[in-house]
């Protein structure tokens, strides 16, 4: 990689409307070489539309995408981008090796077909007709097809959907081996655990917008954390929200519920400012739950 392009992927101001629905609304994304980025969000958050625009499969209403400094179509033509989309797209009447070899034949400098099969963990399936593959095997064959051009950037749209736990682990192991060689990966998923386990960076989407973007540890700290529940006589919501490290608060009568990163700090402040505070409970917010809380909260804020 040269300094001809600082970013493996640069998307700015991407928008896409379908009829009245805002599928993607002003998405900006910069990915530097070597990053493994998870595009995380619930179904319908706009992940697939974003990926389609990044790959040039869908024309954005506004905004621009550059892959390795080039237009998506040009980067793809040079074999710099390996892609695995959601739909199966395998022909039933050919075998696995023929399929991967055909894709390899379209590229200028592919890796050896056997090498791609081995990396995707399907070297034993080379002679099998695609019609006879299980769902998980099909996904891994498609991973081999994405790898065979020996790309700088790998884009995977929900690569593990329709996979059992074993196949899923296999696929991620292959992906990690690939990124070990300094390649860049962008993958979409709605599994929080996958983002957490395999990505350096998480980009959270909700309702067509990016609502959080950062290293896994930071986003995890942001979305996880504690809940403090207490009866706080005389409390006012803006004051609660202004307490140090508070990510969100609700007040029903005297009952306050405060989401925060550091519950000790919040409690200390709370007791100092409102000596009447009592009935205190501190709980941990589950990651999954926190993720939902964060994404739905941002949607409220947006509307």
């Amino acid at each position: 990689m040269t300094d001809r392009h600082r970013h493996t992927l640069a998307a700015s101001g991407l928008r896409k409307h379908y009829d009245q629905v805002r599928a993607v609304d002003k998405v900006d994304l910069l990915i530097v070489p070597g990053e493994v980025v998870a595009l995380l969000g619930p179904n319908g958050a706009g992940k697939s539309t974003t990926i389609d625009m990044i790959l040039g499969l869908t024309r954005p209403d506004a905004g621009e995408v550059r892959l390795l400094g080039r237009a998506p179509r040009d980067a793809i033509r040079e074999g710099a981008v390996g892609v695995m989309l959601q739909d199966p797209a395998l022909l039933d009447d050919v075998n696995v090796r023929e399929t991967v070899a055909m894709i390899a034949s379209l590229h200028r400098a592919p890796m050896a077909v056997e090498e791609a099969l081995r990396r995707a963990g399907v070297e034993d399936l080379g002679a099998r007709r695609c019609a006879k593959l299980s769902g998980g095997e099909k996904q891994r064959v498609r991973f081999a097809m994405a790898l065979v051009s020996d790309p700088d950037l790998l884009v995977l749209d929900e690569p593990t959907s329709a996979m059992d736990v074993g196949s899923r682990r296999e696929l991620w192991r292959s992906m990690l081996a690939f990124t070990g060689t300094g390649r860049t990966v962008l993958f979409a998923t709605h599994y929080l655990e996958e983002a957490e386990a395999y990505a350096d960076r998480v980009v959270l989407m909700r309702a067509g917008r990016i609502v959080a973007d950062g290293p896994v540890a930071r986003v995890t700290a942001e979305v996880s954390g504690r809940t403090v529940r207490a009866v706080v006589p005389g409390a006012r919501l803006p004051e609660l929200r202004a307490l140090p490290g508070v990510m969100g608060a609700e007040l029903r009568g005297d009952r306050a519920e405060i989401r925060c990163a550091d519950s000790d700090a919040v409690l200390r402040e709370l007791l100092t400012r409102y000596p009447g505070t009592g009935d205190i409970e501190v709980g941990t917010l589950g990651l999954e739950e926190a993720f939902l809380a964060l994404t739905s909260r941002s949607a409220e804020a947006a509307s």
Partner: protein
Amino acid sequence: MRTGYLVFEVRRAFRDSRFLLFAVALPVGLYLLQSSLSGQTTAGHDGSYIMGSLAAFGAFKAALDVGARTAVERGAGWQRLLRLTPLTGGGYMAAKASAAMLVALLPVACVSLAAGLVSGVELPAMGWLQQVLGTWAGTLPFALLGLLVGQVASPQSVQTYQGGVLLLLSFVGGLFIPVSTFPVALATVAKVLPSYWLAEIGHGAALGGAGIGQAALVLALYTLAFGAAVAVRYRRDSARV
């Protein structure tokens, strides 16, 4: 770069048992049946006449099938996947048309071989050349027609379209029943169809008729028309990204 895809397509077609059965075994079988039924009696309607008809049938059916199958592949997301490779949309269409032409050579060759070896049809060298290479080259508009059907039809409806086109072209085009036995009105319709003219290339080779220039002209016009339709449709489809 396109050859890899072409080889892939041709291999798929030749491996397809239905293709071998209907585009190769069927015309050869029909040829052997009809040539033995009609005997060596009627002048002009011996084995050499039927050879042209059934070689034309096998060739255009093979070519049509390859193109029409693109509808099913589009439905499976295959074309979407190919858009993520260096193969361009135009390259894909060109490879499909070339594959259609390559597989069409097999039925022409097999029917001609059956005629020469089994029925003892004898032609001068130029006659054989016209029968085999002429009929084969004349299949180009049908390869394009197949692509057009593949573009227009959905994966569900493609079989119906394909069957309809096939029936119309082969029966009304006089490939199974000679046009000379048609009522006048139907014979006029037959002479509008490209399949009639495709068979005329072989008929001309066998019976020494003059028709080949006119057949070449009609088929060239059909090639232009179908080629333009495929291109227009392709432009419209790719604009709808």
